[in-house]
């Protein structure tokens, strides 16, 4: 019996174990023999023999079952080991695509103003002179028209040079204040070099209230908050500037996010980055839509500029080339 137990312990595979099992429980097995002996045993011995046979049978059955379980586990583990993949073969080559950095930046900008209860408005890419220039206090021959080299169309219209025309369209649609809107979209200027593309994207903003409720200070508030949402903890600087449709006008700078104001190549050593144009709405703009006794502010920003700053993209033109070498970095 000790010998058999040693054999069970020593079995190194399920087939070896099966051989031992047959030695015990097979037709000519030791345990089988014990039970057949039982039949021919004297009646007074039967009970004692039966108890002993049962004990042995149970003892070895358990022994074999336990051994089988442990052998099976070992075999499964071996199989797992064999089919295991080297986890360090993993690489970043994920099969998904990515959103375009400009579009994603635009989404991020829109989200901020939605949260500030602005509506999102849109206007056509092909605009008329009235909405793109005239109503925005840019009469014919105004030198500021030169600042926006325009694509003209054969039907007398033009490709919009800014999203500011949506200011006019929105006021026409709303008919009365209040207005609290942004207008994101593509705009076009006839300019193509290292830092200009003939199409780019802007987000326009306009807030109008009845009476003199809206002031320059309100504009300052919303833009400061917005720029910190976009760029983190930056300083914001306002410089007086000129746009025909706002008066007073201001250009807004943030402290350079690359050098933190120390001066670097991106900020041309000034420590500041120009990011926005804005101002108090010029009364001539309200006059163009026939609104009286109202006040408002407006702002406009270039989405590509924001995207380039946020993501450190050096080349504007690369944004329009569908080059996966750039796009895959935004997975």
């Amino acid at each position, binding site marked *: 019996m000790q010998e058999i137990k040693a054999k069970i312990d020593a079995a190194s595979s399920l087939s070896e174990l099966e051989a031992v099992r047959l030695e015990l429980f097979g037709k000519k097995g030791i345990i089988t023999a014990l039970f057949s002996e039982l039949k021919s045993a004297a009646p007074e011995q039967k009970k004692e023999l039966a108890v002993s046979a049962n004990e042995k049978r149970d003892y070895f059955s358990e022994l074999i079952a336990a051994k089988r379980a442990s052998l099976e586990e070992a075999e499964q583990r071996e199989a797992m080991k064999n089919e295991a993949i080297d986890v360090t073969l993993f690489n970043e080559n994920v099969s998904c695509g990515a959103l375009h950095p400009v579009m994603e930046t635009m989404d991020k900008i829109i989200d901020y103003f939605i949260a500030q209860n602005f509506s999102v408005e849109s206007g056509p890419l092909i605009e008329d002179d009235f909405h793109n220039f005239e109503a925005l206090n840019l009469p014919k021959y105004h030198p500021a028209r030169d600042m926006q080299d325009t694509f003209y169309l054969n039907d007398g219209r033009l490709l919009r040079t800014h999203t500011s025309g949506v200011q006019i369209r929105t006021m026409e649609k709303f008919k009365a204040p209040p207005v609290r809107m942004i207008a994101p979209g593509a705009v076009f200027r006839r300019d193509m070099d290292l830092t200009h593309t003939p199409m780019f994207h802007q987000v326009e903003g306009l807030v109008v209230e009845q009476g003199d409720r809206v002031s320059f200070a309100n504009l300052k508030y919303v833009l400061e908050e917005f720029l910190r949402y976009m760029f983190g903890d930056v300083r914001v600087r306002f410089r007086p500037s000129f746009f025909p449709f706002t008066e007073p006008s201001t250009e807004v700078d943030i402290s350079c996010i690359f050098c933190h104001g120390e001066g670097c190549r991106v900020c041309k050593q000034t420590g500041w980055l120009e990011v926005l144009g804005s101002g108090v709405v010029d009364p*001539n703009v309200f006059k163009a839509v026939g609104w009286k006794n109202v006040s408002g502010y407006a702002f406009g920003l270039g989405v590509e500029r924001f995207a380039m700053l946020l993501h450190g993209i050096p080349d504007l033109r690369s944004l329009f080339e569908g080059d996966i*070498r750039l796009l895959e970095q935004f997975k």
Partner: protein
Amino acid sequence: MIITRNWLQEWIDIREISSERLLSTLNSIGLEVDAHDKISLPKGVVVGLVKSKRRHENSDHLNVCEVDVGKQSLQIVCGAKNVEAGQYVAVSLIGAVLPSGLEIKPAKLRGVESFGMICSATELGLAKTNDGIMVLDSSIGELVLGKELREYEIFNDDLIEIELTANRGDCLSILGIARDLGAALDLPLKEKHEFEDADGAPGIGRILSVRASDEVSAKFAFRAYEIKGELKLNLKQTLRLASVDILQSCAVQNFINYATHSTGVLLRAYDFEKIASADGKVALDIKPMPNGEFGVYAGKRLLSVAGICQDAELKACCSSKVVLLEANYTAPLIIAKAVNENKGLKGDEHVYRSSRGSEPKLRLGLDLLFRLLLKNKAVSLYAGTQKISNALEPLIVGFSEKEINSMIGAQIPRDKIVKILKRLGFDVGVEADLITAKVPPFRHDIVNSHDVCEEIVRIVGIDNIAAAPLSFYEKNRLNDTYVSLCNGRKLRSKAAAVGFFECVHYVFDDGKALENLGFAPCKVKILNPINGELDALRPTLINHLLESAERNLKNSRRSVKLFELGDVFNADGSQCLRLGFIASGLKAEPSIAAGAKPEAVDFLYFANLIQSVIGKFNVRLPSENLKFLSEFEQAQIEQGGEIVGFIGRVDYAVEAGRDLDKSYLCEIDFSKLKFENIVADAYSKFPSVSRDLSILVPSGMRFERIKQCIDALKIEALKELIPSDLYSDESLGDSKSLTIRLVFQDLQKTLCDEEVAGFTDKILAALSSELGLGLR
């Protein structure tokens, strides 16, 4: 506009203002500093006097000079052609290091010892003033032999480039910028006395008469001077013009440039003798021209168009004997209109200033110029001025302190408002609550109280205005535009998630290439396209997608999947939003995860990707094929009972012509996509049973027909009908074996085998009788 600190000092005393404060003040008042350079000279460059000059014995271009530098006299070999005895010059002493890095050491030039260097402006790091060495004169200060040049103010200066906005023509001069600075820094402008003619000078009336018709609404003033010797600028004037990059070779022009840059007054010079009539006199006629501009005529000859251009032949130069000077102010709108309406009218450098507003006080420019000329011995001045002055009515703007303050959202006291405006040249009156401001003529950009408010904001400084939130009424502002934007965003995110990269392309496209793809040209055309390849409004997203796919394949990409959500233009010019996709090459870049040899994209793979972006759709065979897609593999996409777009393989001609791998395209009309609320169906809690049927199908028969045949049976328990395998081999001949997986499920009960067999028999019978198909 470039200014120098030293030049500004002529108009406003800023000695107490640090350069840093000067720059930040300029920025804060809206005169954006674009660039700032320090002008400074190295140590060891001193004033010297050339006492003698002799030719170098072994050289035909070198001179040996004795130069007195105060405490000593140095022998210096000099190669400049213009060196002469008696000149005061800039001498770099032994040990000085020039901006180029050159260190001055004792040297031997062709055997002659040299102990220093006589320098040109550029060798000292200054803007180029002339060929050869820089000759000093007392315009820069008293010349003391041996004195360090860096101690002279002009050599210790700030060069500041200001980017002006289009409305600030008044700041296109040193005076204009000084005036703005004066308001911001609360400093007065320096008084300039009017020029007084010398006694006994001949009057200009003897040689000139000027007439103007009544329609001429502009200002003109004429003066004249005679050149008797060599007309020359002094060193200070030359250095200033050179540093702001407007130094020319002609002294007559340089004096004009100096006066214009100083005051903003536009000046022209005519050669008197060339325009004089036989009697030695000139009679000028000023008349309006067809587009409202004004011409200056001598007899029939047009000398110039005010503020726009001048007949170059009649321009005065250094060899002229008598110079006739014209100062002019024409309203910017007149100039802009004339230049815009008449494309043949070529404007010169005056237009930049005149269209933005030059200085209307002509006397400022002429007086400054005559004061400079008065010191010049080679010149004699005529007395008096001939003027045409159809004065413009000054504009008066009225407003209240409250109005300004509610615009700004801060409290600026009335005294401060008045003070700022006065410094800016306004004539200000106060009556009870009303403030009236008479706008100075040089500020044509100011017409209403908002403009005045801007002046206040500028000078007060926006940084000094506290930000304040605006209170507003809550309102649901989520409109259709927003909903469409969100839907677009959803699809874009899904497209990116299944492997497409988002692109943004120009709405301009190549008209020729579009035509080749079979697109009709848009009725609306761009009159002034940026180039020949971007000359048309795109009617589709696919041309740019094809181009980008090609570009990526060239950059050794094996698998290219791109999409764009963008606007296109229909043939009638109406705008519409499309969603376009392209997949080109392999299904994935080769990798262990994707298999070492991924398959090429195919129709079903591509269509499935599209389906996972836009939701379930059916394909329909088109009644008419699209030219740029393969005739064998193209379909219309149907969603919610409407055709929303097309999908298919890129045609061979396009694929080969563009160097593309196997490619598939899809374009969808975004406005037709359904984003409806989904209502869930009741689903069965009983098990489903599936059966695979392998049928022999003759090649060329579309699966669509099999599906229609089975659908027509209207078996309610048939939940799914999926083509699960397609097999062909030689034994099947011209047919293919198609395996269809049928999934049955009943809402009420578990289906038994007999019921399922009943369904499949019914289906097989229909396929046999309708289409003649049988089991393989």
